[in-house]
């Protein structure tokens, strides 16, 4: 899959065929299987799916924050930034991808930065490794493969490039340190050498941005309400000016009124700073509120990715459609909802073929045998199904 379809947009994150399993006593949990999607700059992607379908696992795989028993299988995660010859020097020897002029893309191992406008890539063409010089446009997007990076280089990208708000992170604030100090520590470890006054000033600004009274900087976590803790966590995630934030269930533990406020604030901040976001939630209503684009996951697979309105109005995957109708709403007419038969499969032994086939009303013999490919259906609309709905 190429990202070339949207020429006018700057790519931010390109995930290709990402596959990661967990090793367990009972067998391998196939938590992330062949997941592919692209995120553009300034765009918010919502990942929805039921619990245990692999949403969190995708996030920790992209950031390579994997637990000990994780088995990374394959895939690429290109994280793009504007091309800068100085910065590109740092990635000599690592796989990179250059995207420019809309749909021109070069992938290969970076050998040399020859001049401001030329790079030497080592790539496989016609079955042989060859060195190919690439003329770089000054407006090119330079992507590094997070999967291939070494730990120090990756560490530079975590927080400063991509920061993550973990599920239930608000309970992870250390109760014995002041909240301000905990954020200052995050800033100091990732961008050392800033004078304390400046750091404090920055935290005050962040607090204002997320809607906490800056006077709360010197308070301890127990003096914060649940919503304020979550805001403080968001401020922490923003503290190193990341290009992309991954928010895993950012409001799941909160009450509706607080959830609503925080979601709206995050949306405003994202638009204001033109940041990219990945929201992860099991609640499609929450995702609908904040995302431009939605990725629907089922049993470790990405089954459909499309723009928000498309997912709601013209879903092509039967699971997406069933998911939509499984949510009661307070608006619209009150109707009886149909329950999906069966339940999500055990990811140790997922069904062969399409993983949704035991529950799918449209399943055919083919579905039970062959795994449908994840392929474009319409413009900016991808789905993995043998019999897409129209």
């Amino acid at each position, binding site marked *: 899959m190429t990202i070339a379809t949207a020429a006018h947009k700057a790519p931010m994150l390109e995930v290709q065929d990402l596959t990661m399993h967990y090793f367990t006593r009972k067998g391998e949990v196939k938590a992330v299987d062949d997941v592919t999607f692209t995120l553009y700059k300034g765009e918010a992607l919502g990942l929805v799916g039921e619990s245990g379908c692999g949403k969190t696992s995708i996030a920790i795989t992209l950031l390579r924050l994997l637990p000990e028993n994780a088995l990374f299988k394959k895939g690429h995660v290109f994280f793009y930034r504007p091309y800068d010859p100085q910065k590109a020097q740092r990635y000599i020897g690592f796989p990179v991808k250059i995207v420019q002029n809309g749909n021109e893309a070069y992938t290969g191992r970076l050998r040399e930065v020859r001049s401001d406008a030329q790079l030497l890539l080592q790539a496989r063409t016609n079955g042989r490794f060859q060195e190919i010089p690439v003329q770089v446009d000054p407006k090119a997007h330079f992507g590094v493969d997070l999967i291939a990076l070494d730990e120090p280089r990756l560490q530079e990208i975590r927080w400063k490039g991509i920061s993550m708000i973990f599920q239930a992170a608000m309970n992870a604030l250390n109760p014995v340190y002041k909240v301000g100090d905990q954020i200052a520590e995050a800033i100091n470890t990732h961008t050392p050498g800033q004078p304390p006054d400046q750091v404090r000033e920055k935290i005050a600004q962040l607090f204002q941005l997320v809607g906490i009274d800056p006077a709360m900087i010197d308070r301890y976590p127990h003096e914060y309400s649940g919503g304020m803790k979550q805001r403080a966590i968001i401020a922490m995630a923003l503290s190193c000016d990341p290009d992309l934030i991954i928010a895993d269930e950012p409001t799941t533990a909160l009450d509706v009124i607080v959830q*609503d406020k925080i979601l709206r604030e995050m949306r405003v901040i994202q638009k204001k700073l033109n940041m990219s976001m990945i929201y992860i939630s099991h609640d499609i209503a929450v995702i609908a509120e904040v995302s431009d684009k939605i990725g629907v996951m089922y049993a470790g697979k990405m089954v459909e990715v499309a723009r928000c309105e498309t997912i709601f109005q013209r879903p092509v995957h039967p699971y997406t459609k069933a998911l939509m109708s499984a949510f009661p709403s307070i608006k619209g007419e009150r109707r009886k909802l149909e329950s999906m038969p069966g339940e999500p499969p055990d990811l140790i032994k997922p069904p062969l073929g399409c993983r949704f086939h035991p529950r799918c009303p449209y399943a055919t013999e083919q579905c039970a045998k062959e795994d449908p490919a994840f392929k474009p259906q319409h413009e900016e609309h991808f789905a993995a199904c043998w019999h897409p709905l129209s």
Partner: protein
Amino acid sequence: MNPTATQPEISQVLRTKERDALVRIERLSKLYPVSKGLFARTRNFIHAVDDLSFEIGKGEVFGLIGESGCGKTTTGKLLVKLTDPTKGHIYLRDQERYPLLVTQGDRAIGAAAVRAPKGLTSLNHQQMTLLDVALPEGSDRRRFSELLQQLKRQGRSDPGRRAQGFILSAEIAGSVYSLVTPEYALSANIRTDSLAKSLEQLYYGDIAMLEGARLKSFRRNVQMIFQDPYESLNPRMTIFDIVNEPLAVQGIGSLLEREERVAEMLEHVGLTPASSFMFRFPHELSGGQRQRVAIARAMVLNPSFIVADEPTSMLDVSIRIGVMNLMLELREEFQISYLYITHDLAVARYMCDRIAVMYLGKIVEMGPTEEVIQNPLHPYTRALISAVPIPDPTMRRQPIELKGSITKPIDTQPRCRFYERCPLATSHCAEADHPPLVDKGNGHWAACYEI
């Protein structure tokens, strides 16, 4: 007293009794002691539930909505008698409970509730258990009790008239006293001396009074489904043991019959075939299946009332609807009433006939679900409804901003609980007590001065 004037009253009681409330809650409060600081001397109280009154009809799903910590679970636990109220009463209509009139000649001198587990027709003086009594104003309670005791000892029944509702009679100190059903009194033109109102009360038992065997039989009638299906099933018991537990504790049936019943119940909640589930352990089931087991367990005693505390909030979307539909089907089939506790308005809209919105231990608004959701009156309900995300990007909402966030109801001020956050608050609200819940028409109640 003119006999004809009192007769319509009693017939009214008899007519409404079938569709009357199953549960009646009156001014219920529960306070939990808390200490503010580590060394605080003063005792403070959390008003977890504060002066709640509502009724739940037969076969009705009554929803209790609110943010976390507003007292929903506490109310649920009070209703199943897991904790006892600080103040107030919970009355439950009990199938084994019969209100009877005590007559002297053709005049009713009082009423008494008796317990008859096998129905009135098999009630004789030996097995008669007297529960509450109700008397016309000015009667001597002690004398009446003595009379009842004597009636209980000496009463003889006449099999011929029993079927019509004439239970017992005895001659005491020269006059004939008897115990008759209200229906009999009505047909025999007995003067009831405006006992009808008290009679209505006698259909209900105050669950605070229950002890021993009566508490046990109450447990048979009222069950609870808990929020977390992972924690509400004992991990060391098989599914059979879990569903069988209520039957075993209540001493119902032989082992073989109980096996039958458990299997039947499991199939009823969609765990088919039952034999493949009976001897598994909870950790071998998925969340939805576990919640189905919890439902089977709650249903196995054929209760008339179930408290369901967020039964679907821990479940996955794709199985949540299945569990909700199951509960609705069981309601249709067995005429069960539910108290359905949830924080999710959309779920409440799907499940409930009527809902009550709680804020810091108080009901702020109550009414038919659709009415409350489409036409909220209380400023808190409005804010709550405006904050619910809608799974449809084409629908825009206008969220209502509220100041601050929900606090704990510790030693509350004597004014509207919502005052600090209310966008409509006036000086009147600051001075007056918490507003009473008043009927605004259509069975829609709200507690606010400004509507």
